[in-house]
């Protein structure tokens, strides 16, 4: 598994992206991340809930209770308009970051 401290700074964006696609709940998000990355990156659930708290406090996402499933009511998250704007901004920022890092990481060997 990849070192997670490099990804760590982008967890907010990753999770916002997943919630942007459709409203999701915690376990679904952690599963989705594992599937999409072929298990090369797995988010610790504890980290996930910390991100939820942070994003909700910043009003980038909001939560509501969904239907009852095994084990109780699922808590779903949806992205807010502010969240969408924030995500767009981080995407633009990432493009620039990528270009800068590539300047130094590419072309070796």
């Amino acid at each position, binding site marked *: 598994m990849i070192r997670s401290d490099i990804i760590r700074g982008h967890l907010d964006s990753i999770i916002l992206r997943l919630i942007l696609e459709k409203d999701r*709940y*915690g*376990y679904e998000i952690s*599963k989705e991340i594992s599937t999409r990355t072929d298990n090369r990156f*797995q988010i*610790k*659930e*504890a*980290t996930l*809930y*910390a991100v939820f*708290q*942070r994003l909700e*406090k910043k009003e980038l996402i909001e939560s509501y209770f969904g239907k009852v*499933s*095994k*084990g*109780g*009511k*699922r*808590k779903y998250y949806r992205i807010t308009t502010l969240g969408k704007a924030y995500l767009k901004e981080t995407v633009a920022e990432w493009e620039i970051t990528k270009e800068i890092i590539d300047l130094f990481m590419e072309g070796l060997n």
Partner: protein
Amino acid sequence: MRKLNNHVQELFRDVPESEQKNAVMQEVMQNLEEKVWDLMEQGKGEEDAINKAIVDFGDIGDLKKELGIKTPAKKDHTKLNLGYSVWGSLLIISLFVFINFYYTPEIIWFVYPTFAVLWWPLTMYFKWQRSK
């Protein structure tokens, strides 16, 4: 599932009670249970599934921070202590000065106890400096 519940309780033990805490705990429980069911559907035994869910969950240090546990910053009292020592020694010294000039004005002896007392604010001064 009892074991799962116990584990979650244990994780959140030192988080101060709040509505937010209860909401998060409930959410965590719900998602963990769902994960356990999912793992069991994939053919794991219940014991196995629960253990995996617990291990995958990880450390909740970050989450605690979000829930507002601040490691209590040790308050710096050194400046206050210095102030106290200055005022205290001034009082003691003026007492000596008063006794000296009131009862034995022909011999100046108050400087000796003054030197002794001055060690107090001096010590406090350097403690304050070190803490900065």
